[in-house]
């Protein structure tokens, strides 16, 4: 290349230009470097705390350590709710060489249908971060675990993990009393302390499990771990061990509960038994029951729908939520109300022509015995379950005093200390009717209430606890389910207990008891067949709750009615009279008369509790019942 003509180079000038430019470059270098230094100073000095925190958050993960849920025992130490290890199949994708091969092998080993491969593939993707095990299958069988163990070397990344699951050995019998735990749902999650429940997947949904959730749950522990960017745990930095939940000892007696369940024999009904002087609930059964274990892992839709749509309402806890007209079972309580208010004395009598009429009213309120019981005093009124006596008594008391006195026995309110989901029942009053129907109270309605019909509705638990208070000579003790929480006994005296019921003459209690004893043992007693061969003094009262009302002067034949339109059979009882150890309420829906269809069940319960060695088998009781069904006598 030829040198261009005018390129007479001027080295001096070129050097000068370069030096100027180089100096400028130095300046630029200094400026840019200061920029970097400024930025580094900002990050490392000014914002150091922020980034330190960020870095710690990256590195340290706090893993919750869920506590083991407390166990539940009956009063004799029989296990009612335990934590059973179940085995889940999990998979860590990062450690699996060939996912398709592995899943195919798993399905083959576990002897599952081919279609499961797809389900496994879906589940293997369900996780929040890398290296998190994905749950493929829960509740593996022993054989499946063994097969997996043998082939372990072929299955890197596949693990069998143990998890404790709630298990109820006597699920059907205990379902309503114990309740059950289930997976925490979104709604519950909002109200929970996130710290305490961080690692917990289950929460008490109903019953004892729910009421004593706090005690049973325990305190969560923590594990601080260092993880790398892929979430792999590298080491443990610190640990707070969880505090397991307290074991709960209930007042329930497992064998009595089982007996009650068998006595009800799959019918719709409920039996509640209480120790009168302590309020300890010995049995609280609602039938039909259901398998509460299904609810622990999550019940499938079809089974749940089947339970919900079952006409017998197995999920409904009749013992605490069933509303039944008490029928004649409340006659002893009304007699006591009359005694307290001075409306009657034990010796005052009425003459029963077979019906009662309000002054200036032609309507006849019938005794169940058409031709009447003639002269009736208090004891006889209870023994023969005379209606006319109680029409008179109710009318004389008036609805206001009747409401007050019956409320004193716990009717129309929640009575128990620790029963979750208890209903109040309904004790009608003027105010209630005004609020409910905007109508005045009519005198005729008082008469209905006087024989336990009309608006009055009780729960089996209320009936049993009122019976207990009666057996206790008016001393009220709150019914309870928990005997001990951990090692701590539940105090005998509980707050908000109802005031005691006091009679002018303490002997009058014995007169009422005598009337109740005659129900079972008297020659005229409505349940005298049940009283045959009693080895102790037992007081009781039958009741028959009409499911639908009859018109005036109508009689009906139970057998002609559809089964579900038949009367509910009720019976309340306590024994022994001298020193009551058990109070029972029995309700069998649509069974018919209480003296025939409920009294035997109450007797079987008291026998079982009082004559421990000679407890009758449920089968025997059933036979007796069948012999008796023909007789529809009394209510």
């Amino acid at each position, binding site marked *: 290349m030829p040198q261009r003509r005018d390129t007479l180079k001027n080295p001096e000038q070129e050097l000068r230009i370069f030096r100027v430019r180089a100096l400028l470059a130095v300046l630029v270098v200094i400026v840019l470097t200061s920029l970097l230094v400024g930025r580094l100073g900002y990050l490392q000095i000014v914002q150091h705390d922020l980034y330190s925190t960020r870095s710690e958050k*990256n590195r340290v993960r706090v893993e919750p350590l869920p506590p083991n849920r407390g166990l539940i025992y009956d009063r004799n130490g029989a296990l009612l709710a335990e934590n059973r290890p179940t085995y889940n199949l999990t998979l860590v994708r990062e450690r699996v060489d060939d996912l398709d091969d592995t899943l195919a092998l798993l399905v083959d080993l576990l002897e599952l249908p081919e279609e499961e491969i797809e389900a496994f593939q879906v589940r293997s993707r369900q996780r929040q971060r890398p290296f998190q095990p994905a749950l493929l299958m829960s509740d593996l069988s022993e054989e499946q675990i063994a097969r997996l163990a043998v082939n372990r070397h072929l299955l890197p990344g596949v693990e069998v993990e143990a998890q404790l699951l709630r298990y109820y050995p006597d699920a059907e019998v205990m379902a309503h009393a114990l309740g059950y735990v289930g997976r925490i749902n979104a709604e519950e999650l909002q109200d929970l302390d996130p710290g305490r429940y961080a690692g917990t997947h289950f929460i008490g949904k109903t019953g004892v499990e729910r009421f004593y959730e706090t005690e049973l749950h325990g305190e969560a522990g923590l594990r601080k771990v260092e993880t790398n960017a892929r979430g792999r745990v590298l080491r443990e930095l610190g640990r707070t061990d969880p505090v397991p939940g307290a074991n709960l000892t209930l007042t329930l007696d497992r064998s009595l509960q089982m007996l009650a369940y068998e006595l009800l024999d799959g019918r719709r009904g409920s039996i509640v038994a209480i120790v009168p002087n302590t309020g300890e609930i010995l049995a609280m059964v609602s039938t039909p029951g259901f398998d509460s274990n299904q609810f622990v892992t999550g019940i499938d839709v079809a089974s749940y729908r089947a339970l919900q749509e079952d006409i017998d309402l197995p999920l409904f806890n009749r013992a605490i939520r069933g509303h039944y007209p008490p029928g004649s079972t409340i006659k002893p309580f009304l007699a006591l109300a009359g005694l307290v208010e001075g409306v009657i004395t034990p010796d005052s009598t009425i003459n029963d022509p077979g019906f009662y009429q309000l002054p200036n009213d032609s309507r006849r309120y019938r005794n169940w015995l058409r031709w009447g019981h003639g002269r009736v005093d208090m004891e006889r009124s209870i023994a023969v379950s005379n209606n006319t006596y109680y029409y008179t008594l109710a009318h004389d008391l008036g609805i206001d005093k009747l409401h007050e006195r019956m409320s004193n026995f716990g009717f129309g309110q929640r009575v128990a200390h620790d029963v979750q989901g208890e209903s109040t029942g309904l004790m009608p009053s003027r105010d209630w009717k005004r609020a409910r129907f905007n109508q005045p109270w009519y005198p005729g309605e008082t008469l209905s209430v006087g024989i336990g019909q009309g608006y009055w509705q009780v729960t089996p638990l209320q009936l049993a606890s009122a019976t207990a208070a009666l057996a206790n000579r008016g001393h009220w003790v709150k019914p309870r389910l928990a005997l001990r929480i951990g090692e701590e006994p539940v105090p005998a005296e509980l707050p908000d207990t109802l005031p005691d019921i006091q009679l002018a003459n303490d002997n009058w209690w014995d007169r009422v008891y005598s009337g109740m004893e005659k129900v079972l043992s008297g020659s005229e007693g409505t349940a005298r067949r049940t009283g045959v061969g009693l080895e102790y003094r037992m007081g009781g009262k039958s009741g028959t709750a009409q499911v639908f009302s009859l018109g005036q002067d109508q009689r009906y034949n139970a057998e002609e009615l559809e089964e579900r339109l038949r009367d509910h059979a009720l019976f309340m009882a306590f024994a022994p009279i001298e020193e009551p150890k058990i109070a029972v309420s029995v309700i069998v829906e649509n069974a018919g008369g209480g003296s025939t269809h409920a009294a035997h069940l109450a007797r079987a319960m008291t026998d079982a509790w009082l004559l421990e060695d000679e407890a009758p088998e449920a089968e025997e009781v059933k036979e007796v019942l069948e012999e008796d069904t023909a007789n529809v006598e009394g209510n």
Partner: protein
Amino acid sequence: MPWQLITRSLRRYPVRPPDSGIARRKSIWERIHLDPWLLGMLLVLMGGGLVVLYSASGQRIDTVIAQAIRFGIALSGMVIIAQFSPSTFLRWAPLAYGAGLAMLLAVEVVGDVGMGAKRWLEIPGVIRFQPSEMMKLAVPLMVAAYLNRCQLPPRLRDIVVCAVIIGVPVVLTAIQPDLGTSLLVASAAVIVVLLAGLSWKLIGLVAALGAAGLPVLWMNMHNYQRQRVLTFLDPDSDPLGSGWNIIQSTTAIGSGGLWGKGWLEGTQSQLEFLPERHTDFIIAVLGEEFGLVGMLLLLTLYIMIVGRGLWLASSSQDTFGRLFAGSIILTFFIYVFVNVGMVSGILPVVGVPLPLVSYGGTSSVTLLAGFGILMSIHAHRRLLPR
């Protein structure tokens, strides 16, 4: 030949002793054509780099050894290159430039695809390299050689020629696509023009045109490149995706504080939160484990190298040497600035390694080759009369 004319004219300068009138004896360093100061600082930098690399590689000594071997090869290359006279480079400039262009075209046709871009040329089993890497030296070399022939400051016609020399390889590199390298190639060459005395008016004009051309650039960018820019503007918009790198690297640096967490103690680095921790993001490891103090020491070392390099460049006797040496050393600084800037979050993420610290052979070889030329330019100067 013009080149020979130039070299001959250079040789015409008489060699005279600087002060005492006695013929000066060349020192050992002058005889092996190396600058002891620059060499010393480079060795300190590489040594320190290996220490950081050990930590950044997850304490894998084999990585460190592999890097040390590369340093060894690159240093040998530097020493060899330093033995050539600058006139050799001047002579070879058109050839190197032409060969580089040919290979860039070859990449377009038969190049290996890596990371979604055609960058690599491979003779299987023999060698695999990026021609664009070579162009980082070849393009500024060519520009310096061209401007050496012109009267400076360059006139418009010369500048147009320079623009063509620069533009063709830069565009070829950019469409690979490798925007980062193409920008580095361009800046190395543009620095030559700037040092040659490009008029301020033109600088202003080009800057304005560049600003106006940004939207065009944006339109022609690949999605991942746009994503990088967007992420730079707001890393938290995609904290687990493209924002992850910058969030983790600023966290690493910031959590280091003044003194750092200590060597091998950086949790961001050791627990793999920091991505590309032993390559492009290695300075975050230094920032985390050695703190601001470590960062300032490193920056000081870099600035001293740049300062020494500029000094050597300006003491060069001919325009070619000055321009090329200046470009080499200022490009070196740009590497440092861009890398530290991107890792600390003031520049978008472009794939620029930290010179002589990041793991990787190619860039070390290129850089040390550049320093070899720089030393050659310095050591082969003739002593001029004042």
